[in-house]
């Protein structure tokens, strides 16, 4: 059941190529969230190209697995994943944030097939994921629901309301992941409003919790596999990540939360990502 070495290698290369597309898209657009898109790239690559079942030709396919990007500002990452998955042409990525584009600044389900729900205002995605998971339970559907949260987002009270609901209704068809990159707009999460100990909090709320590196594809795929075996409670995968992962230009730099690379910065980053090809 575990991912093979070959699969891991393919996924790593997929994530590398997604990072290149994310950066080109953001640099071309001139505004958007770089750091939090790059920190979660490996996680989203594993979801879309290892774990989830979906049909890009039938986005509303009843038996699909669902992905909710609760940290909606990582929209460039989601758009890149959807383009790679075949929901739309890669060429559309360059329309990001432009007037008339389906690729809104934050994901908008009204326009773009493959997006389950519009997000952007933080703290709301886990509740939505719960609702889908409840419906699957009612329908006795084997489909699963995934939600990606930011660590700063855990400061929102609604997250903890949703944490209670998921445990109360024993939503073992739900797997949430935290992109724990440790930085938010105003600075380190620990300084702005501490959220640790994250794993203890989710355990106390009745969740199965895995604590992994969010950049180790073997760990990510193994955790996603294990989550499917958990019965009677939801799973939280706390992914320890580096904000801006993939290039020395952005890694660990809070200023790249909501800004995009200059032409020169893009060149350096693309060079580093090209060299990272194994």
């Amino acid at each position, binding site marked *: 059941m575990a991912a093979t070495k070959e699969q891991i290698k393919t996924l790593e290369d997929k994530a590398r190529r997604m990072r290149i597309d994310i950066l080109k898209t953001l640099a071309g657009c001139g505004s958007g969230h770089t750091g939090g898109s790059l920190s979660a790239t490996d996680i989203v690559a594993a979801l879309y190209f290892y774990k989830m079942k979906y049909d890009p030709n039938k986005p509303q396919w009843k038996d699909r697995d669902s992905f909710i990007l609760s940290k909606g500002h990582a929209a460039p990452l989601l758009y890149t994943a959807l383009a790679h998955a075949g929901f739309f042409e890669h060429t559309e990525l360059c329309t990001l944030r432009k007037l008339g584009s389906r690729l809104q600044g934050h994901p908008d389900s009204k326009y773009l097939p493959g997006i389950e729900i*519009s997000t*952007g205002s933080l703290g709301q995605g886990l*509740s*939505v994921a719960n*609702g889908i998971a409840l419906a699957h339970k009612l329908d006795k559907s084997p489909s699963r629901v995934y939600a990606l949260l930011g660590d700063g987002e855990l400061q929102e009270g609604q997250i903890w*309301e949703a944490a209670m*609901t998921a445990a109360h*209704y024993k939503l073992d068809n739900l797997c949430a992941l935290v992109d724990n990159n440790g930085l938010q707009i105003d600075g380190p999460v620990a300084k702005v409003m501490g959220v640790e100990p994250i794993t203890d909090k989710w355990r106390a709320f009745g969740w199965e919790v895995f604590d992994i590196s969010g950049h180790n594809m073997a760990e990510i795929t193994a955790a996603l596999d294990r989550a499917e075996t958990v019965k009677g409670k939801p799973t939280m995968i706390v992914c320890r990540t580096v904000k801006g992962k993939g290039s020395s230009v952005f890694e660990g730099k809070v200023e790249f939360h909501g800004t995009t690379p200059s032409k020169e910065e893009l060149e350096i980053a693309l060079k580093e990502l090209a060299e990272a090809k194994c």
Partner: protein
Amino acid sequence: MTQKVATRDAYGDALVNLGKKRDDVVVLDADLSGSTKTAKFAKVFPERFFNIGIAEQDMMGTAAGLAIAGKLPFVSTFAVFATGRAWEQIRQSICYPNMNVKVVASHAGVTVGEDGGSHQSVEDIAVMRVIPNMTVIVPADGVETQQAIDAVAEYKGPCYVRVGRNKTPVLFNADYQFKIGKAHVFHEGKDAAIIATGIMVAEALVARDMLKAEGIDAGVINMSTIKPLDTGAVLSAAKRCGAIVTAEEHSIIGGLGGAVAETLAESTPVPLVRIGVKDTFGTSGDSDGLLKHYGLSAGDIAAAVKEVIKKKR
């Protein structure tokens, strides 16, 4: 003696009927199911009822998720919590993505009574009306409530339906046909038209009788859909009567009175007097006493009609 039914009771019955007809109906409540009457549905369809606890924000998002997966969620709690505590969740997770979620809020207005101002919603119509994609309905009686619930179930998109706590007169026969966005004209009138919504429709009908005894012919229009507003009904009443009184158990700011004022000002400016809560919070008391205290009784409406007639040129 007129039959009296609380619109929240009619809502609970309508949900049960709807649940029998449609498997996709699910109901969510935030620990107030006994009061909102969703408990009636929960009793018949326990597997399709989700108590989310005292967590209104989470409840709205959960409803959106259920809608994504093809369910038809009805979400209930008191109006003040549904539209106040969870306003942004209604905006972001329900209206912005245009989700097929029905928010039916009870205990609206000052007639909540003894619980006091913290629980008396006088802003909900205004804050729901302003959100794009939202339809806003305030039924006038039990019959209209049942029909409105069936209508919003058929309609695809977010809806807000406001129901009340107390028993109020039944105004419609079973053959009445509610339509979203369509006003019901009880009396056309000649001297002035009262455009009322919710429990104030019954008060308006009493006011009409009071005025009739004094030789004044006041029209009465039930504006049960606040958004989209039946502007045709507003404008034809303005042209016919030349003066309008609005009546709502809600702030005079942003609700029915606001919507009618906007419509009149842009095309047919005629004298207008708004009956409603005058930019103040509610307070504890018995509901009849509160209606008088806030100037929402039939007598107040009748006085407003006389006032607005004097403003006619």
